[in-house]
């Protein structure tokens, strides 16, 4: 709807990314842009028979409009939930010339996405706090017990408490490291940290396995249980530490979820990329979980996840880093027959 009272502004307001409604001094609609029509679900014909309060049909809105029109408030704002979406309304008075009188401008914004992000952020924070408080409770309880006991009683429990404490500190450290990686990825900062170089795929695979055997208790036998085969001279292009980080998460999962079964890693050239497949013969991933394995904090519910610590961030980070380096990561699965994770990274110039 256009208004002769707004000839110069209407072209701009027609393109405004928010809904705009202008009411005259008698609260009649003298301008409404297309976006407002859409948000309000109104038709042009409605404006001939209905006022803004009939169209919005919300008591809180009417109350806000009364305040602005009666000058008890210059501006008012509220949120309205309608048809599954959230809209923010901002009402403000617009003093015009004596000819136009005092008008009210209503600006409407669809804030559904912001509300969703808010609730997701709240949920993530809650999850993070929960994951931190568990190990902190063990540390506080066991160390507190040592400090409150007699030296004789304390010395009997000393080694057990130290062992538990080291385990929980390692767990907290790993969680903080993964959180940091996830944050860097989410904030779009990971790209700035990338330093690309030519990397021999077989060498980085073996290096990553060696590091994992040293750092992860459940992966001590990684060197003996994992066989690496395929293209020995394939060269990929990526950030050395980030590629190692991706492989670390893939190998750790494969070793943990395959029990004592062997894990195979194959390296192949695949068009303009280098393809690294990590194949385990473990419990596999249930179909219902497959869409979520790369989600933040997702951990399937099975015998292994109940006994082995994990944050549910590894695959999220691995996939994000692979994508940032111009590659991809996905998984294929056969329940009770194992899982294949396929990592593809750009080939290097010397590949």
């Amino acid at each position, binding site marked *: 709807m256009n208004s002769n009272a707004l000839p110069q502004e209407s072209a701009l307001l027609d393109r405004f990314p928010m809904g705009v409604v202008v009411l005259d001094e008698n609260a009649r609609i003298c301008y409404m842009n297309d976006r407002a029509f859409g948000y309000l679900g109104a038709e042009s014909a409605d404006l001939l028979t209905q006022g803004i309060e009939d169209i919005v049909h919300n008591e809180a809105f009417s109350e806000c409009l009364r305040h602005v029109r009666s000058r008890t408030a210059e501006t008012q704002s509220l949120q309205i939930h309608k048809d599954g979406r959230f809209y923010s309304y901002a009402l403000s008075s617009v003093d015009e010339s004596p000819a136009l009188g005092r008008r009210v401008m209503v600006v409407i914004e669809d804030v559904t996405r912001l509300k969703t992000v808010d609730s997701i952020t709240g949920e993530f924070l*809650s999850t993070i*706090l*929960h*994951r*931190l*408080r*568990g*190990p*902190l*409770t*063990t*540390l*506080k*309880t*066991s160390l*507190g*017990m040592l400090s*409150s*006991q007699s030296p004789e*009683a304390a010395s009997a*429990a000393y080694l*057990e*408490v130290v062992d*538990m404490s080291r*385990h*929980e500190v390692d767990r907290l450290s790993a969680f903080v490291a993964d959180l940091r990686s996830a944050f860097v990825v989410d904030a779009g900062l990971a790209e700035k940290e990338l330093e690309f170089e030519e990397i021999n795929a077989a060498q980085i695979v073996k290096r990553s396995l060696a590091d994992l055997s040293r750092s992860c208790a459940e992966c001590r036998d990684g060197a003996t249980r994992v066989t690496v085969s395929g293209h020995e001279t394939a060269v990929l292009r990526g950030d050395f530490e980030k590629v190692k980080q991706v492989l670390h998460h893939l190998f750790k999962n494969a070793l943990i979820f395959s029990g004592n079964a062997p894990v195979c890693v194959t390296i192949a050239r695949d068009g303009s990329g280098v393809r690294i497949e990590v194949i385990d013969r473990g419990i596999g991933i249930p179909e219902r979980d497959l869409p979520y394995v790369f989600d933040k904090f997702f951990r399937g*519910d099975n015998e292994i*996840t*109940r*006994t082995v610590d994990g944050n549910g961030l590894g695959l999220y980070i691995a996939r994000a880093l692979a994508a940032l380096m111009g590659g991809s990561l996905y998984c294929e699965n056969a329940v009770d027959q194992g899982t294949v994770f396929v990592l593809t990274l750009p080939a290097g110039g010397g590949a």
Partner: protein
Amino acid sequence: MNTKVLVIDDERLLVKSTCMALTACGFETRGILDGKDAVAVAREYTPDVILLDIMMPGDDGWAVLGKLKADGQTRGVPVIIFTAREYSDGLRRARAQGAADYLPKPFEVEDLKEMILRCAAAEKEAA
């Protein structure tokens, strides 16, 4: 006879450290890692107080609490909810679902000890 406490939490080291600390305080303890065993173990062990986590895979703490309160043999055992999850109205919610008390993690062992003794005493008086 020492007060018997059953600790139910899916975190292995948390169960171990809590049982050790409570044993050092003079309680008798048993720990389990899966809520699905709660009713069966509570019937067999006959604890004076149950310490119950909320965030567990499978049956969460609220579901386990419901089952304990529905079972004729275990319904009278006071349950203390202890959780790392944020609940602004944790105590109200816990009591509304039949728990005796609520303790956010991490906690002071002294606070837990007093809470256990208070709940056990209250149950004895009621019986």
